[in-house]
């Protein structure tokens, strides 16, 4: 069984440690496979079979179905591998930043611009 989730005391900030790495292994392995264009196509042809092939847990399959980054992270996903999943749908890190913070992409971009002040 995966190790217990630990609180590192940094709000809103996942720490991808051994517990998360165990929990997310199947999910991250699937996302790692998306380095290959043939695998990306196979996933898009039949998403459910592809998830089953990698042995995703019900929570991971649901998070994939929902395209929900916070759920994917809660299910053990690591953002570097998840970025390859997001890329299949043409989503970049600002799109996933907006989704996670509940902002519009425009608001999220403005937040980044404001950080320059």
């Amino acid at each position: 069984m995966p190790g217990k989730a630990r609180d590192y005391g940094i709000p809103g900030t996942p720490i991808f440690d051994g517990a998360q790495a165990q929990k997310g292994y199947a999910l991250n392995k699937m996302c790692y496979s998306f380095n290959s264009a043939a695998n990306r196509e196979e996933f898009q042809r039949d998403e459910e079979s592809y998830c089953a092939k990698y042995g995703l847990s019900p929570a991971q399959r649901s998070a994939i179905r929902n395209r929900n980054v916070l759920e994917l992270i809660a299910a053990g996903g690591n953002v570097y591998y998840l970025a390859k999943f997001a890329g299949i749908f043409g989503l970049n890190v600002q799109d996933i930043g907006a989704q996670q913070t509940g902002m519009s992409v425009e608001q999220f971009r403005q937040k980044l611009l404001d950080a320059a002040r």
Partner: protein
Amino acid sequence: MAKILGGLTTSHIPLIGKAIAQDLRNEPYWQPFFKGFPAAHEWLRKVKPDVAVVVYNDHGLNFFLDKMPTFAIGAAAEYRNADEGWGIPTLPPFRGEPDLSWHIIESVVAEEFDPVTCQEMLVDHGFTLPMKLFWPGDEPWPVRVVPVSVNTVQHPLPTPARCLKFGQAIGRAIASYPEDLRVVVIGTGGLSHQLDGTRAGFINKEFDLMCMDKIVAEPQELARYSTLDLVRLAGAQGVELVNWLVARGALTGSVGKVHSNYHIPISNTATGLLVLENRG
């Protein structure tokens, strides 16, 4: 003997790959970032390196969680880039300098650092984009390379103090190499940014500027931070600052700043550029 000419550091955001491929350098969004580089090019033309030792982190191209090395050193005659999954153009292969790689490996292991050695190694955007930023001209690449990969993906990460010491060991290794090679050391990644969690989009200008100042002459001040301090202050992916610390550690002499640039934002990231000269 090999000579360490200096160090270069830059951010390595994937979007830079698109900007280069689509030649967006002079667009208003990109100009404040790219305007930093001509000074680096000028310095490189002056010092004429033969080899670049490039310290970066792999983002899931060469390494997966099945085997995740804390430190890995390339020892190949050639390194290739490949599809990373989201469509930035791949760049042509890089020529290695395997004899220098093995000398560095032998030397750092003798100093009790134990990196993974790689005779095959795909290099991702963390490696390739800085190369393209520093040598934007036509292929083939004018320098040979030694890739050094640092784990910034899966905690526990090597501590900032360990990274600075690892860099110092690499610097002693290069300086003791008997061939007359001219070497620059490159550190990539950062500065402050966070891609994941409800704090995504976190940037810390004050901390970044302090780091860019301290790393020139007082890198030990930055080595005092814990990994979690860096996560808190620079964001979850801002920990890539440790690559800069490895590169800075390799500069064995008195170090002077030739040039710097800092710009917020490119994509989700605060970007930094430093050109540091190793003044013997």
